[in-house]
């Protein structure tokens, strides 16, 4: 009974003439091997690692206090002391960009976790039980597809309040459907496999079959989908901040900083430039990383 995707690790079959059979490796190691060959994805991983370090460092140290007003002149251009210049209230942009990293990463990862939990649970239930349960869940998914994501997020943020967790919940509510639909499809096909039948015959409970047998076997596509949730969540979060409904001020975040920059675009350009650049690079990195992951773990899927 195959319960997990990891194949038993076997020694390399070596003969005098060299390696004859291909070494049997787990899905994970095989995926990692393929990912390593993708230069663009590797660069993205390095960039994201640096970003994570910056986010952690910003908890303990920033060059100036990110919310301290009047440290330098209003709209002061980049100088040695303030390499990214200063904003409208004379706050140090570098410090605020560093703190903004935390917000963007938290929005991306937090939303991905919520979407993972909700989407996987709902999708497994719909795909495994089928029938009326599936019909209701599919109807809900279709209704959510029928309304523009950003509007739902805006209403939810207003309803729940502008906290970071609330923003994650609001963003999740707009993008959980893809995950649910993917997992539903996986569950629909996996439930017909022999090992699931065997598990059912041996008296395993539904919960055990769903999370112990179907979920692990659908892990590859689920992880790939989850990595694509991250950039979409960061983007939606930036849009919310840009429209003034993101994390409440004075908390620095990239979308809000870009919004302040656009307001001042006729006077100075560095205020809009740096948060925009940071956002764009981060989203690019997550997308390249996600593409690399998909090619590595899901080689059958065409680009």
């Amino acid at each position, binding site marked *: 009974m195959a319960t997990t995707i990891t194949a038993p690790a076997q020694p390399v079959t070596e003969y005098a003439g060299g390696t004859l059979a291909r070494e049997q490796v787990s899905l994970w190691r095989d995926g990692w091997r393929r990912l390593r060959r993708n230069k663009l994805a590797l660069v993205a991983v390095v960039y994201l690692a640096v970003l994570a370090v910056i986010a952690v460092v910003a908890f303990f140290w920033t060059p100036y206090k990110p919310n301290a007003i009047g440290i330098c002149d209003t709209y002061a251009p980049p100088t040695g002391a303030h390499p990214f210049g200063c904003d409208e209230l004379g706050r140090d942009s570098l410090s605020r960009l560093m703190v903004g990293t935390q917000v963007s990463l938290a929005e991306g990862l937090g939303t991905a976790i919520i979407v993972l939990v909700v989407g996987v649970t709902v999708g497994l239930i719909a795909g495994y039980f089928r029938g009326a349960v599936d019909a209701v869940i599919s*109807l809900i998914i*279709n*209704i959510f*597809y*029928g*309304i*523009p*994501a*950003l*509007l739902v997020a*805006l*209403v*939810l943020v*207003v*309803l729940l309040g502008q906290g970071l967790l609330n923003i994650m919940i609001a963003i999740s509510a707009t993008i959980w459907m893809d995950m649910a639909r993917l997992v539903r499809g996986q569950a629909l096909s996996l439930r017909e496999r022999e090992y699931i039948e065997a598990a059912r015959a041996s008296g395993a409970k539904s919960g055990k079959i769903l999370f112990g047998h179907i979920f692990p076997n659908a892990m590859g596509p689920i992880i790939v989908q989850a990595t694509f949730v991250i*950039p979409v969540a960061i*983007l939606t979060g*930036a*849009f919310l901040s*840009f*429209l*003034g*409904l993101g994390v409440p001020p004075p908390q620095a975040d990239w*979308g809000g900083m*870009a*919004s302040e*920059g*656009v307001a001042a*675009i*006729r006077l100075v*350009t560095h205020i*809009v430039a740096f948060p*925009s650049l940071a*956002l*764009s690079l981060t*989203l*690019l990195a*997550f*997308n*390249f990383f996600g*593409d690399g992951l998909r090619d590595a773990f899901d080689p059958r899927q*065409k*680009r």
Partner: protein
Amino acid sequence: MTRGTLIYIGQRVLLIVVTLLVVSFGVFAAVHSLPGNSFISEHLHGAALQAVLHQYGLDRPIPVQYWDFLKGAIHGDLGNSFVIQGEAITPLVLRELSVSMELGGAALIITIGIGMLFGVVAAMRQNTWVDYVLTTIAVIGYSVPSFVLASLGILLFALALPDWTFSLFGTAIGYPLRWQGTYGDIVQLSLPAIALGFYTSGQVTRITRAAMLDVVQQDFIRTARAKGLRSRVVTIRHALRNAMVPVTSILGPLIVSIIAGSVVIENIFGIPGLGKEFVRSITSHDYNVTVGVFTIYALLIGIANLGVDLLYTVIDPRIRY
């Protein structure tokens, strides 16, 4: 039209109606349960506030209020604005809808145009530098937020170009910073439409490229080539037509994401469309307008998705419902 098609359309219309009911009630209940309303700013207290709330019917239970809204909505009356005194919402929203549709339509044309062109060229030059450049542009497309592209455009065309370009070329090059008129002109529309359309064009590029690569391997393409047809004819008449089916499949989500993107773009460029109205209504507690705009959007998307599904049968006669 076969009987199956009619049944299918009937089901889809039913889904649209259910969606409209659920969405409008959800938003209605949500915004009316919010603390605070648009009358707080008028320094009304006690009995006076109660009188105003009573005048607008806001002191009644939410299901009753929703029932009233529904009765009006069926007759095309979405009620009155709380903030703009005596302004009826239906004509307001319809005018703004036409502005948004102008912008969204232009963005959709740009998205499909750029996306399919890039996708076809990338597929024809698979694994060459042309392919890599175009697919990278596609990833950049959906990685760069639309407001970044918008500000880049403003910097380039409205601010960086010196003043004399205005006098030399008129407004053909110099981009006006403030939106003029209700609908703007083609020059004004160009920048927001490109900023809006570029984001989604990346998805179209990928789908088109993948679909083209899939199609050109099939037998009928080899047959067409063997018949001695010119390569361009094979590409456009045989391959592209079949590659359009997957592209059509993302047309619905494409329209939804263009609508979402227009909320941001309209606010940057000051375009008086539905997206700008929505943000205004929600930040100024003008909740009747919020519900109205939301309902219109849901209706629009429902109709667009139905249209896309019917378009399938035109592009690919093998598809039947």
